[in-house]
């Protein structure tokens, strides 16, 4: 029976490698889109290495390409040029179906607007990534309830998202992002929609869960306070990365 600490996944997740080689490596990544017949480049050659277990804060002005970079890292989009390798293999070389399968196993997403499924209860939202990975609801239930207990939401397991406060919704989103023990957690302004105190509480929980599980966290933020919590801070300027 799986527990909150050990979840058996039918399709095995590759082991998170040690600090060398890096979990993520970006080389000359470019990305853009065509607008009114003209090519608009958002990322103009991004190079980056992220070690397993590292916590990274990504800052930059609006429109600098932070979300685009996050989507590339999560396999939601592919670069127009360059290479993104995860644990040694090239993500850009995967087709859409393979990227989806890779994402469901190795990535957890946390959004500013929570993006919970309104038609599912808290527990069902949490268990959904497990189900997609082939673990049935019954088997994942204990793990889900364990994690919900850690974020003090076990009693709200049967509630629907519209009955939760913003902070509670974000905690559910966090548990959903971590339940299947992904190697990489991507968070896009996770406290952007919360007041300061609630945001702090959410970040504390996120920090403890991610560190306890040894996951890699890349977090987009506008907040210097949030950024300061990270192991490393990088800034996107004009589509290129600058170390801060």
């Amino acid at each position, binding site marked *: 029976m799986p527990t909150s600490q050990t979840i058996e996944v039918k399709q095995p997740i590759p082991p998170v490698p040690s600090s060398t080689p890096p979990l993520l490596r970006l080389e000359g990544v470019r990305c853009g889109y065509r607008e009114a017949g003209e090519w608009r480049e958002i990322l103009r050659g991004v190079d980056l290495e992220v070690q397993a277990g590292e916590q990274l804060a990504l800052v930059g002005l609006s429109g600098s390409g932070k979300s685009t970079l996050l*989507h590339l890292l*999560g396999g*939601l*989009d592919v670069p127009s040029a360059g290479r993104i390798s995860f644990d040694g293999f090239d993500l850009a070389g995967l087709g*859409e*179906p393979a990227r*989806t*399968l890779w*994402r*469901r*196993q190795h990535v957890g*997403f946390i959004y500013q607007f929570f*993006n*919970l*499924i*309104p*038609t*599912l209860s808290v527990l*069902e939202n949490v*268990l*959904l*990534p497990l*189900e*997609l*990975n082939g673990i049935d*609801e019954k088997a994942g239930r204990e793990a889900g309830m364990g994690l919900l207990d850690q974020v003090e939401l076990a009693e709200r397991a049967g509630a629907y998202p519209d009955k939760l406060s913003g902070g509670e919704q974000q905690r559910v989103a966090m548990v*959903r992002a971590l339940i299947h023990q992904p190697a990489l957690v991507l968070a896009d302004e996770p406290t952007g929609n919360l007041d300061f105190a609630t945001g702090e509480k959410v970040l504390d929980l996120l920090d403890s869960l991610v560190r306890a599980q040894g996951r890699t966290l890349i977090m987009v933020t506008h907040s210097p306070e949030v950024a300061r919590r990270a192991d490393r801070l990088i800034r996107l300027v004009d589509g290129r990365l600058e170390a801060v």
Partner: protein
Amino acid sequence: MAILARANRRHFLRHPLQLLLAIIGVALGVAMVVSIDLAAESTHRAFSLSMEALTGRYTHHITGGPSGLPESLFTRLRVEEGLRETAPAIEGYVTVKDGSTLRLAGFDPFSERNLRSRFVKAARGDDAVRLLTEPDTVMLSAVTAQRLGIHPNDLLAITVNGQAHQLKVVAYVEGDEAPDPALEGLVLADIATAQEFLGRIGVLDRIDLILGNNPDQDRQIRSQLPPGIELESVAGRNSATQNMTAAFELNLRAMSLLALLVGTFLIYNTMAFSVLQRRELLATLRIIGATRGQLLREILIEAALLGLFGGVLGLAFGVLAAKGLLHMVTRTINDLYFVLTVTEFMPDPLILLRGLALGVAAAVIAALGPALEAAWASPLASKARSGLENRARRGVPWLAVGGILSMLIAFVLLQTESAGLVPAIAGVFLLLLGYGLLTPLMLLGFAWSTVVLARLSNAWLLRLAVRGVAASVSRAGLAIAALTIAVAVSVGVGTMIESFRGTIAEWLDQILQADIYIAAPSTAARYSPPLPNGLPEQLGRIDGVDKTGTGRRIIISTSLGESELLALDPPYLNQPGFRFKQADGKVVWSTFPTMKAVFVSEPYAQRHHLKVGDNFELVTDSGPITLPVAGIFFDYRSDQGLIVMHRSLYDRLWKDGANTSVGLYLKAGADLEKIRQAVGLILSSQQQPLVVRSNREIRAASLETFERTFAITQVLRLLAVGVAFVGILSALMAFQYERRRELAVLRATGLTPAQAGWLVLVQTGFMGLTAGLLSIPLGLAVAVALVRVINLRSFGWTMDLAVSLPPLFAAIALAVFAALLAGLYPAYQVMRVEPSAALREE
């Protein structure tokens, strides 16, 4: 149920009205198809069963001309030729107190024995003896007896050829066995009793016989038959009778399929809306790791379930509706084709299963587009509505190109005369589909012109409303297309019926040239009882009557199959009795009394591919004779067609002095009522009741039959509009739901609740007006296709297209009204919405 499935299914449970509308859409579509199928199948089944009951194991019939067969022929065949497996038969129609028509069949218990299994009970035992020994005794089908409340030894009041009689029911045809639906409407009598009641003493209608599969034997029997008497196979005769209704049923089926097509629009609409509503949910699922295949499967399963629920509901509606339709279909068949009594209604499991499958398939096909859209959209792009509308807008010209291509194919199918009826119906469907595809482009054009006008007149609410519609072309275009098609079909069918009515009225004016007509009341379609001998001459002597004309209608055998023949003796030749298709009517009509040729009606020519100058063979009392076609005339009394010859030629070919009708032509200034009274006096001395009607009364009665024939079409037409209304309601609710944030912003910036409500109504009214205006050209095109192609290929009738403006204005008003009605609930919702809540939802 898996969590992924739950996430999607609960979406529908949270929008019960939307779910209900979709289920109703499928249900109505399936109900129409199933009800038509069930009604048609029940009539088929009733026909087959009654034919089987009446023909039993017999393989062939020997039939004669209008005067029937002499009884001596039966004796000769049985005794001299040794054909033991033969039985004499005579049949006619009688009416009973509830107005229904029953089949009176005369049979010979001694000849029957085991040949007609259903008559076995009747042919044996004491009851058969009573039929032979007691006068005026009959057996009655148990089903019919129950319906009429008749028990053994009760009296049954019947009217035959206008004369009332009382018959004693000695037993049920089935004996003590369970009522047999196949025998519904059957009154069985000894052959002598039937001959007496039908006024045909010494005459048989046919001799039934069993022959092996031996062409030599067939030939030998044929060679021994007197001239004018034919041997024909039972299967061929039954199939020819049943084929009469083929075009009628095909047209009904086409109407029901149209309803399903509109229903499919509805499902598409619902599924597209549900996918759009869930685009964020679906995008989140994709981000979490749901594959395209998983989402596609989920949405298609949803659609299939929706189709299943709607289908099951549709089957229930369909069975209920079929009972009503059965009555209408049977009445039309009785009016136009042959006598059929159907009270037994058995839902055929195969039809129900097919209806259900059709509902599920329509739902899945309709959902395929939105499902592919949902599954294939990038998880990032599907979060943006504007992206979808941009794609939809880019697709509009391509849809228009597809629409034009579809209409071109439709044009070719409708123009190719040799293509037949099914391609013509496919052509009408393609025309509707093509126009539907062109609708979004026309909507954008219409919206642009309205915005320009609104700007010039400073009508800001109108401008805002119309811009909103144009900005949602993916949704509004579809809703308008569905409403346009439904209203256009209504306009097309309405114009066709109006054109037909006008043509019939004109035709009646042409053929009803006498002032008063006398005929025996007919108990069945295609059966005209003869008048008493000498009656025309007696009537012609009435003071004030200028001349008389006679007519004789009979069914004859021809090389083209069993046909109706009308022998006419018109007193005047200056005024053609028909409108001729190709030739100058006056010239052709003037040669009528002397020509050794026939005229054929347009449906007859169409059905048998005859042209003026073609020859075909008629079986007469003097043997087969080949006659040329001298003219083709317009005629609308039957889609089976009619052969017309002059009475003098008829008398040379048939030994039949009888008349079926007499027309009295009055002198100028004669008093119609006085002459009618004189006619009544003469007729009162006749034993046989006869009917006297002025040409005006016949005209009214004919138009009444016409209205009855189209009653079923009108019902189907209304149902199609009903389905479309549900569609537009669903589409408008979806449309307004999607715009709630925009409306909330407008409310937040100062739009009052009343103005918000008006905005919604102006939008829906604009959509209704667009659909109404667009439906007119399409409706007229459908009318042309129905009048010039479908009716011609189905029934062989050419009609004059009659377009009048009031129904067209009514169609526009209907579309606007339907749209406004459908907009009321969304308007109410918008007026109640809290701007802050709607804005927070984002």
